[in-house]
């Protein structure tokens, strides 16, 4: 079977999966006596014609690219980092603390550069700790990374009502940073900022790192067969720590784009579903860094469509329609993995049959 067939299968099955997910969500809308065609039509029309809304799609995609890359990176080493949410929180904490400290003192480009490096390191250290526990004590990384999110969240809540508490002292949230510390806008008239470009560049960088460098080769080798790669001289323990450091660092950078690019302050229960959506996106894209860019934009679009629906007057569509659409699409995409394998199998059988008949 050649690559062209594979790509064709991939595009067709993914397209069908997304369509099936949306159709099922549309049926759910009918339960509320809402005509899904007009609602989806209106939402799509607004999304594609309104510049501001289109910008929001990419804006929402930005942090998801980072958390999806975070999951995909360790996944290539057959490791599970499902703590991207916590690493994102760590990045967000560091981003807001550093930005508030340097706000108005340090020129914008220098400030942004320092913050991006700090978030990278902050998320990375959480990741590296998980990787270290895995390498040194053979601790189950799935469990440790999952639990780490709750610990970081508790730390964040503590800091929000103590060291990072706003000057007014009313709510558990930080002061807002001034315009000097914002990531500059990419397209005037939208909220879209340069963080999106950064995310795309990082995704390309991750692709190069994974497929064009020795480190990437080692990570993938450990992922496909740990004991064989150990015998060939790859130190798998070192790879665990490095892979987890980079993975955590990627999730940490989402903290940078969300704090300095969108929210400009840190609040309690900040973007609670970024980690799990990132995981879903990584699946959608088969953990391919370039595919992740497109899958993130799809998830961003689903989020925006859901918001648009919620704002339609008189219809009262609940915001949970977003989770519903994302959930259905993910389930069908997973099923499509099976379909692709089945189609490839059948094609191979037919080819063999032809060879035999000759």
């Amino acid at each position, binding site marked *: 079977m050649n690559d062209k067939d594979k790509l064709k299968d991939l595009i067709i099955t993914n397209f069908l999966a997304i369509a099936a997910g949306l159709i099922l969500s549309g049926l*759910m809308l009918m*339960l*509320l006596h809402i005509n899904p065609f007009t609602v989806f039509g209106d939402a799509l029309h607004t999304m594609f014609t309104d510049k501001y809304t289109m910008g929001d799609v990419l804006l929402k995609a930005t942090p998801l690219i980072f958390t999806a890359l975070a999951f995909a990176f360790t996944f290539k080493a057959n490791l*599970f980092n*499902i703590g991207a949410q916590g690493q994102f929180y760590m990045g967000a904490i560091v981003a807001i603390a550093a930005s508030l400290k340097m706000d108005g003192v340090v020129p914008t480009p220098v400030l942004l550069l320092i913050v991006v490096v700090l978030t990278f390191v902050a998320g990375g250290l959480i990741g590296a700790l998980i990787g270290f*526990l895995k390498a040194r*004590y*053979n*601790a*189950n990384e*799935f*469990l*440790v990374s*999952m*639990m*780490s999110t*709750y*610990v970081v969240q*508790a*730390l964040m*809540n*503590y800091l929000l009502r*103590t060291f990072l508490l706003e000057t007014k002292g009313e709510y558990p949230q930080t002061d807002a940073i001034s315009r000097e510390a914002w990531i500059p806008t990419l397209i005037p008239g939208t909220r879209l900022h340069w963080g999106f470009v950064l995310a795309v560049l990082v995704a390309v960088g991750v692709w190069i790192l994974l497929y064009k460098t020795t480190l990437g080769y080692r990570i993938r080798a450990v992922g496909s067969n740990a004991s064989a790669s150990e015998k060939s001289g790859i130190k798998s323990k070192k790879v665990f720590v490095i892979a987890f450091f980079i993975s955590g660092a990627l999730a940490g950078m989402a903290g940078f784009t969300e704090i300095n690019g969108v929210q400009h302050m840190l609040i309690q229960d900040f973007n609670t*579903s970024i980690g*799990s*959506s990132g*995981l*879903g996106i990584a*699946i959608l894209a088969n953990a391919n860094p370039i595919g992740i860019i497109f899958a993130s934009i799809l998830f961003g679009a689903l989020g925006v469509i859901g918001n648009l629906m919620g704002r339609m007057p008189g219809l*009262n569509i*609940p915001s*949970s*329609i*977003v*989770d*519903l*659409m*994302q*959930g*259905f699409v*993910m*389930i069908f995409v*997973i*099923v499509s*993995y*099976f379909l692709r394998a089945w189609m490839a199998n059948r094609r191979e059988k037919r080819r063999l049959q032809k060879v035999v008949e000759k």
Partner: protein
Amino acid sequence: MVVSLLARALMMSTPLLLGSISEVIAERSGMMVTAIEGIFLMGAWGGFVGAYLTGSSFAGILLAMVCGLLMAGVYGFITIHLRQHQVVTGTALNILAAGLCTYLQRVLFGVPVSPLKISPLPKLAIPLLGDIPVIGEIFFRQNILTYLVYLIIPLSYFLLFKTSIGLTIRSTGENPEAVDVAGISVNKVRFLTVLAAGIMGGLAGAFYSVGYLGMFTSGMIGGRGWIAFAICFLGNWNPKGAVIGTLAFGFTEALAIYMQTVGGGSYFPNELFIALPYILTIVLTVARRNFNVPAQLGTPYSKEN
């Protein structure tokens, strides 16, 4: 004070015990039920809906088990029959469950002016046993789901380690080829254990809505399914271990509440106690060296390889 605290800790342990034992049974057959968070949530929702619409807690509990069963059925079908990744499928189903129950809640009840309430399960004092000082108050003045768990703990242990069914389940997780050669379908065993886990997980979810709070909110599970999942690991895939793990969790939770009430918050931040169960899990995961992981945990089975 301490007695009521312990009684409360035991009550809060009920769903964790149900969940972790359900996970032990499924994982022994090689299936991680990563949809457990979603199963808990659907169970909580189903329990509330059943109890609210019929006025009977029993109907609620029944519907909760059906919801758990359905979630587990979808999970089992995709992971076992379609051979897809367990972590990945579970994550997708958890996201879907969060959307589904909030959405269906809206479809059924619109936007209610005041929160919808049902009467939570009553505390039943067992005659004689309930009158024993201290012990009676802690163990024998609980609701019916807690009593059910008292039965499930020894039964699940007996099932897994003393019966041929248990042997088959454990062999399926350790050496599926042998089970296959013996003429038993590996996939069928796995599917059945996942369904059983779904029923128990749904029951655990119902504990939060029907058994305890008497209402439903989409955030009411809040990671407790994952805690049950973690306890299964910490308990070394054994119902006995699950009991010890749950008690450790219950203890740290009770300690957190205790510290708050006696004003320990002025020395230690409250968030430290909230994080304590999670930190404890990490420490125990690191400290335990001799884990007894089922050899084929998470790997789909096919005859060809």
